[in-house]
């Protein structure tokens, strides 16, 4: 019950991890089924229709329901602790963000059971996704499920922006923030400015599908390329939303386990901001073959190539952080160090793709599939694994098993390269993407088989991680405040798991790597910035859950043209908003006597 009403960022982080982890397994299963279908030519393991549903749901689930929530898990678990705050700026909205994501994801996946999942790709291009060519409900689930889940993401973005701007501990200027916090700050800005564009696109497609609007109906003057523009104006920043937090994790982990401060901190901050900014300038590199003309293609080619520069700056700064350090290869650090060359491989194929005339060959082939899996899986997922191994003790109070962690790393890492390196060649040799089968005798057989075997290895790696979680929950080693012994940032100054109120006394920050600075000055703890006193906490609430259920119900109502149900669902949501506005929530206080350093029970 506590978990349904919590507004505590630490618990919400765990909820995001559980839900995101669950959807990661769903998306992973979809990937395995895809690879089984492709292991040999003209296979009939799944039908063409089912295959298109699998590829659509794999992409949509992994990006929106697995990767982003797991990033939100880390954001929630870590950011308030890293800046010395007791919670995020809007705890109620934080909970609402989780529940809307959760119900949006459930809605999307219900489609499997009600006659068909969306099957027009995660990019849902029109006219394929329009009512004329996708007459069943699949794309409706996509359009509505993502709108609901998208609300959650937008809320989260605003929440973390305000938290980071307004709630840093005394002495923590912007240029003393940990790199992970900077990464989340820029990411949140990207979320704020990218998701509304997606919302408009989804609304327009929904209007076309449900109410016979003509945004994308070419018979009545609609424009299908317009969908591409709207989608990719969101879609490109989205991939930077995915990767910047991973960059933040890498900065923390490499620095901590090299016992050295991050090399070139101000350059890193600058590079992060620049990547975020440039991310909005390159969307049409997904549309080089759409017929925008040579001037547009040339400009977007150059803009896309430019993003390689700040990214390269980051890579070199990580390498030089390790240079001269004392490197310990914990599981967390294995993932982080494995990230560097892998992400560079993905990044360089990105520069290759940026050259528009060459892209005319690569586009919509397995070369692109290889590229984005290298940066998303080889980048983001390795980053998430790293972050989870690193911050697990702070979230759950126990250390993940190191042997199992290394096993996870090696199986997943080798499986990953096996799956995707070879796909570059498949694409160059003429294999388009999103095909449910291929002919025999054209040279694709062996490479597809190798790729499928690699996928199973990745599955095995994931299983090792789950075993690790279970073993740790049952008999894991308890963690101290600073279990890695080299913690540099504020989250390592408090018990593991963090107590309900985070900091007994808000700390005083005297420099970058605030905790490390105190350690080097011979202090075991932070200097407090305030006396011990009663701590004000926000009250839990069941309203976010009900509001999300209301949206869930409304979604079904609109989709199946039962407008009474749709109105009822919206009514529940608005009623909860009204109750929230009218009822004053003054929170509660934890008195000094109760400050026993009791951690959050997971």
């Amino acid at each position, binding site marked *: 019950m506590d978990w349904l009403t919590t507004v505590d960022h630490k618990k919400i982080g765990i909820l995001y991890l559980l839900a995101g982890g669950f959807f990661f397994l769903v998306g992973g299963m979809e990937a395995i089924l895809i690879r089984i279908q492709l292991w040999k030519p003209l296979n009939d393991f799944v039908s063409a229709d089912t295959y298109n549903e699998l590829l659509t749901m794999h992409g949509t689930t992994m990006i929106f329901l697995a990767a982003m929530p797991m990033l939100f898990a880390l954001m929630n678990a870590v950011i308030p602790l890293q800046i010395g705050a007791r919670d995020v*700026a*809007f705890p109620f909205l934080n909970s609402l963000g989780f529940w809307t994501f959760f119900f949006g994801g459930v809605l999307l996946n219900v489609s499997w059971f009600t006659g068909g999942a969306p099957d027009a790709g995660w990019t849902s291009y029109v006219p394929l996704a329009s009512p004329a060519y996708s007459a069943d409900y699949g794309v409706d689930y996509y359009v509505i499920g993502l709108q609901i889940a998208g609300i959650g993401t*937008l809320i989260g*973005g*605003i*929440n973390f*922006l*305000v938290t980071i*701007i*307004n*709630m840093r501990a005394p002495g923590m200027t912007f240029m003393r923030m940990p790199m992970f916090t900077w990464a989340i700050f820029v990411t949140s800005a990207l979320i*704020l*400015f*990218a*998701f*509304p*564009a997606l*919302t*408009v*696109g989804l*609304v*327009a497609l929904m*209007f*076309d599908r449900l*109410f*016979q*609007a*003509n*945004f994308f*109906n070419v018979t*009545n*003057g*609609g*424009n299908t390329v*317009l969908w591409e*523009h*709207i989608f990719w*104006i969101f879609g490109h920043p989205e991939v930077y939303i995915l990767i910047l937090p991973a960059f933040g994790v890498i900065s923390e982990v490499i620095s901590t386990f090299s016992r050295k401060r991050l090399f070139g901190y101000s350059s890193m901050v600058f590079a992060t901001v620049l990547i975020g900014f440039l991310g909005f300038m390159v969307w049409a590199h997904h549309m080089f073959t759409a017929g925008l003309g040579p001037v547009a293609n040339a400009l977007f080619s150059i803009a896309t190539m430019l993003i390689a520069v700040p990214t390269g700056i980051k890579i070199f700064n990580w390498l030089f952080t390790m240079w001269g350090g004392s490197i310990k290869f914990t599981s967390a650090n294995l993932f982080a160090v494995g990230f560097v060359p892998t992400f560079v491989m993905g990044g360089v194929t990105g520069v290759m793709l940026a050259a528009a005339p060459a892209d005319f060959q690569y586009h919509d082939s397995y070369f692109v599939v290889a590229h984005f899996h290298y940066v998303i899986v080889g980048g983001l997922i390795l980053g998430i694994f790293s972050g989870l191994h690193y911050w697990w003790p702070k979230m759950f109070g126990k250390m993940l098993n190191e042997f199992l962690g290394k096993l996870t790393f090696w199986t997943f890492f080798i499986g990953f390269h096996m799956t995707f390196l070879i796909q570059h060649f498949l694409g160059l040799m003429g294999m388009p993407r999103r095909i449910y089968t291929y002919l025999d005798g054209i040279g694709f057989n062996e490479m597809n088989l190798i790729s499928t075997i690699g996928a199973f290895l990745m599955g095995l790696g994931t299983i090792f991680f789950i075993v690790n979680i279970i073993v740790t929950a049952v008999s894991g080693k308890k963690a101290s405040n600073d279990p890695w012994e080299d913690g540099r940032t504020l989250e390592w100054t408090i018990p593991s798991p963090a107590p309900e109120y985070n900091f007994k006394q808000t700390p005083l920050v005297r420099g970058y790597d605030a905790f490390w600075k105190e350690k080097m000055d011979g202090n075991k703890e932070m200097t407090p910035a305030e006396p011990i006193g009663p701590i*004000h906490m926000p009250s839990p609430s069941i309203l976010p859950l009900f509001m999300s259920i209301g949206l869930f119900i409304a979604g079904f109502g609109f989709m199946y043209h039962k407008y009474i149900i749709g109105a009822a669902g919206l009514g529940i949501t608005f009623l909860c908003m*009204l109750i929230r*506005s*009218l009822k*004053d929530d003054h*929170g509660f206080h934890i008195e000094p006597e109760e400050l026993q350093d009791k951690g959050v029970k997971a």
Partner: protein
Amino acid sequence: MSAHTHADGHLPHEPEKATLEGRNKVLGFWLFLGGETVLFGTLFSAFLALRDKVGEGNPTANELFNLSTVAIATFILLTSSLTSVFAIQAMHAGKKVPMLWWLAITVLFGLGFLGLEIYEFYEYVHEGHGFTTSAFSSSFYTLVGFHGAHVAFGVLWISILIGQVLKKGLNVVTAPKLYVAGMYWHFIDVVWVFIFTVVYLMGKVG
């Protein structure tokens, strides 16, 4: 989270910023408006892309739009923005009753704007310009309709806030709510200025 209450019971000068929650709310709302700007910006882009796709035999923008009605609606909305400024000024001066009156007038003007817009849409539908008529019409109703929905939400919101202040009074908890509602109202006013220019004026000019 310490509250600023002055010993003599007077409201602090900028009551919406007197508490951490208040400051968070104001900053959060500025950011939200940034997101809304992108939202309306995308709706405008879609409209601009599709504004020529009127379809055979359907009325064009030039034929449809009655600038005098739209001008009156514009005047009403702009004035309501001014009255909302007066309301916030009264709030900063700690004058609860004048603030409530200005808010009520704002709501009335908002309702007037909505009434005119509903009448306008009704006429258009009868002239053959319905939601499903063409790409132009779909994007027109979506853009202008979304704005209208925002006005309607604002009217409802401010009305409820008037009720809340009547019940709980003007303090550092209700002040941030009023302040962000004022910001919201200004925002939809600015959006309307763009709609008036891009949709109606440019539509008339062709």
